[in-house]
């Protein structure tokens, strides 16, 4: 009949033997050495960190010292300007509410804002009130200083 079909047979004499014994990975350090290495690296890093942190703290002290030295000058100027602005606000309010009946400057139709404290006491104005008469950009820039500076 037709030629014999070719078959995928094993080679003559059979396959070569397969080596299935375990070959473990080559280890360079044992467990104790690894822990020791970790300790050494940690110690060196700790020393470097200590040195750097001391330096950072010294720099912080210097910077803080410089800022505290300048602080009274800046505060003095700021306080004077603050009081000037309060006076300007009060005058502006007097001008605005001149024709309103029963209005006293700094009160709500004659009623005091803080009723139980003595009237000589200085209470800081609310920030909306402090910037009420100017452009709103002044309010946003100053009230949200860290966002817009």
């Amino acid at each position: 009949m037709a030629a014999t079909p070719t078959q995928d047979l094993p080679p003559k004499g059979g396959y070569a033997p397969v080596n299935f014994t375990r070959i473990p990975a080559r280890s360079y350090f044992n467990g104790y050495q690894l822990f020791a290495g970790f300790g050494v690296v940690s110690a060196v890093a700790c020393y470097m960190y200590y040195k750097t942190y001391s330096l950072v703290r010294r720099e912080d002290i210097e910077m803080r010292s410089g800022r505290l030295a300048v602080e009274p000058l800046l505060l003095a100027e700021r306080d004077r300007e603050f009081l000037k602005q309060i006076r300007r606000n009060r005058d502006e309010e007097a001008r605005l509410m001149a024709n309103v009946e029963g209005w006293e400057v700094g009160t709500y139709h004659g009623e005091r804002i803080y009723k139980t404290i003595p009237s000589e006491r200085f209470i800081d104005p609310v920030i909306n009130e402090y910037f009420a008469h100017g452009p709103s950009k002044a309010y946003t820039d100053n009230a949200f200083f860290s966002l817009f500076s």
Partner: protein
Amino acid sequence: MFTKDFPLPTEEELTVQEINTCEEQNNEYMLCRKEEKDPRKCLDEGKAVTACSLNFFRKIKKSCLEEFSQYANCLDKSSRDMEYKYCRNTQAIYDKCVLDNLGLERPDFGYFCEPKIVDSKRPKPIEEPLSFPDAPEPLPELPVGGEARYGSRKFWFQ
């Protein structure tokens, strides 16, 4: 808010020409500010502080202007925060100049971070101890004003 009768200083009292060691004046001013908690009561001390600082700047301007402006320029442009560590060279030159001309040494490291005890001539303000009466005092009657024309008085409702 501040009524008509509320004592505020006038414009003349507040207008001061603006900018040696100024340590005494600075300490006095900060003590006043902390104790009185009222900017109106510390105006004299504040003026002393500004006057002292301006005198110092005048002295520097006469003798050490070059070094001062170079140091300031370096601090300004070297880092975001005006850190001192990037400007040691200019600082050395400036310190030498100030020591030669004005006889002022740079204060010790961390000098201004130390707490200071200020012996001030001004008497300490008396703090009244809190009083706790038996029954709360009744609030005064509200004046007859009608309804609120613009809604709530709370300032955060715009």
